[in-house]
């Protein structure tokens, strides 16, 4: 599987061809539209990350030691960024997720979307992804200790 940072690099390069903001957004919208919505069972308050203006739903499973994220948003641009995050984070071990820095968001000029003052739930989603990774890592550790 492609290296974490290589994927980030790829994303940044992909975006670098767009000179105009609107082209970037068009691309994000495309990505958002392509991302399958989350199963209705997860589109509930339990999985909701509430931004002030847009919502994000997130769920994660551990399958064969790797995290499987399902995520969605009611705003399509947010969903586009969610798609990028899922693409990057999916199928990773908890360790991979916890070790690596996220730089692509910055690299494609979307950092403001992750600022703590932004009302879209994305920052909370990134935090939640890491929390999932931590939780599953702890669980694995515990299981190992019992072996």
């Amino acid at each position, binding site marked *: 599987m492609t290296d974490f940072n290589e994927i980030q690099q790829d994303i940044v390069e992909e975006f670098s061809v767009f000179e105009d903001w609107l082209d970037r957004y068009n691309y994000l919208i495309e990505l958002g539209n392509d991302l399958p919505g989350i199963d209705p069972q997860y589109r509930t308050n339990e999985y909701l990350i509430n931004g*002030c203006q847009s919502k994000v739903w997130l769920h994660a499973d551990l399958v064969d030691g790797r995290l499987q994220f399902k995520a969605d948003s009611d*705003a399509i*641009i947010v969903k586009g960024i969610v798609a990028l995050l899922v693409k990057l984070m999916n199928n990773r071990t908890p360790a991979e997720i916890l070790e690596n820095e996220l730089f692509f968001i910055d690299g494609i000029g979307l950092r403001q979307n992750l600022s703590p003052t932004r009302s879209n739930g994305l920052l909370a989603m990134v935090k939640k992804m890491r929390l999932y990774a931590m939780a599953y890592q702890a669980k694995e550790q515990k299981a190992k200790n019992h072996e």
Partner: protein
Amino acid sequence: MGFNIEQIRKDFPILQQQVYNKPLIYLDNGATTHKPQVVIDTLRTIYEKQNSSIHRAIHYLSEQMTSRYESARETVRSFINAASIREIIFTSGATGSINAVAFSFGEKYVAAGDEILISEMEHHSNIVPWQMMCERKGAQLKVIPFDEKGELQLDQLDELLSHKTRIVALTHASNSLGTINPVKEVIRRAHEREIPVLLDGAQMVQHGAVDVRELDCDFYVFSSHKIFGPTGSGVLYGKEALLEEMPPYQGGGDMVDQVSFEGTTYNTLPFKFEAGTSHYTGAIGLAAALDYIRSVGIEEIGRYEQELIRYTREKLEGIEQLKIYGESEKRISVFSFLLDNIHTYDAGMILDKMGIAVRTGTHCTQPVMDHFGISGTIRASLVFYNTMEEVDRLVEGIRTTIQMLS
């Protein structure tokens, strides 16, 4: 000199700004307005040459500053035609003013079982202070509903006004629907029952002449930053007889007469309600803004904005996928709308990237959103420095947005 939009735009330096290399089209004036150069220069000159704390001191700078502060009070008095400067209290903003009244009026006049009447279209700042006071006093909040056009259902007013009603708190103009409320009618009917009325003028004073004596309202509040003045400042107008009876809201320097641990006596109006070192630069900056508005002409501004309203409305209504929320004919230049199947956040983000600043969300009027069963709107709020061309650019922007998102 007549209303010269080009000159006016030059008076506001920020309007020459670019965002994302595009000319800024600022349509978020309902949130805050920009400042004419004269206001900015007033602040700078104070801090560079004249700064001093006011009242109490007798040295030169303090004398000068005090007299400018007190003449700012007179400027405000005359702007809203209050009877006396004793009725003009400088506060931290509309929210500060409403909290002061809710607390102080509540302490004096509200008891368990009493009722406070507000409307369904109030800004959170004219809801929550009353809720907090009601909770403290065991009183109850009653609500005048609005209809599908976004107009108050006045036919319900007489039923809602009861012998338990202690005060009516109503917005003069709605920040999310644009409606200008029939406040004189409400005041008349409330006064028939001897119930005082507070008007929230945060969205009205910047759009047209306000005469508190003609309105006969008992309290009137507004924020400096929404009428081209500095942040952190605002006004509470109250009829002298009422303010005289009400206990002070905050304690501190300047609002006292004699202080001892056995007991403290309070200063006269308006100082009784101004505790601590006042935000004198804010008050003086506000006065500079009001003087500027007068120099442009509040009538001229009103007339120009009527044209803007007509034009904007026509253009927005020309977009098939757009639905306006708040269709009152009597309105300020504020438009809330939604685009078919498009999330407000997405629309806001895309418009932003075209240099167009609109607000998306609930605009601090969650009950209005609940009324329509929506989670928010896109809001374009214009003032007299906005132009028809900017409206054209907004409409173009909306069309692009629709194209991108459908």
